[in-house]
């Protein structure tokens, strides 16, 4: 089994890693955090497509 990855290219999986990946794709549920991120990003992307940029929120450091 192995996980071989190239920064600007392919992610190659064999053996147990490949089987686990397949199972995670087949049975995995979408994470709420990913759905929230996609929803926020969708708003940003719409502004980016319209204006060529999107202004971002700068939070105060804790």
């Amino acid at each position, binding site marked *: 089994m*192995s996980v071989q990855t190239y920064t600007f*290219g392919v*992610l190659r999986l064999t053996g147990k890693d490949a089987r686990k*990946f397949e199972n995670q794709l087949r049975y995995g549920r*979408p994470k709420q955090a990913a759905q929230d991120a*996609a929803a926020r990003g969708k708003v940003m992307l719409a502004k980016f497509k319209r204006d060529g940029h999107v202004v971002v929120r*700068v939070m105060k450091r804790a």
Partner: protein
Amino acid sequence: MAQGAAELAIRALKPGDDLKISLGDRAFTPLKTFLCRHATPYEARSLARTYVLVDAECLETTARVWGYVTLVASEVQTCDRVRPPQDVHWPSGYSVPAVKLARMAVDKSMRGQGLGSQLVDFAIAISVSISEHVGCRLLVTDAKQSAVKFYEKAGFTMLDTPGNLEKSAPAMFVELPKLK
């Protein structure tokens, strides 16, 4: 703040942008090197797309870059006769098309303000948008161990195998069709 600027914005990398980002740790040198030396030629040759954080007042001009994210086309190859998704006819040795979040960094003076999270939100949305027009199932990244929690919080899933978890930059992914 970015030296008095009221707001920051994400826009595409422009030739001539000031790319001398300060990351503050040798472990991040490849991220700095990529931005300084390779991001612009990769952009020109369509090998990668880089989106940068700049002062919002510098949108039409070249500007100091405070952070960036770079996306490339990728794929996940599985070998060893792993079967394709259920009920889908697919040749043996199939690949899963993907977008790769190849590089991301925020200047050390700007960290802790939610900017990295917003770059990831933006990258996820671009990937979802691509997947609506081109067969593309995943957004993948190689997350440094120190960044794994950050990516989990952003919605990425760890490839949960011992071999992957031991890596200095384990593979993580977001499944795009499940976000539509």
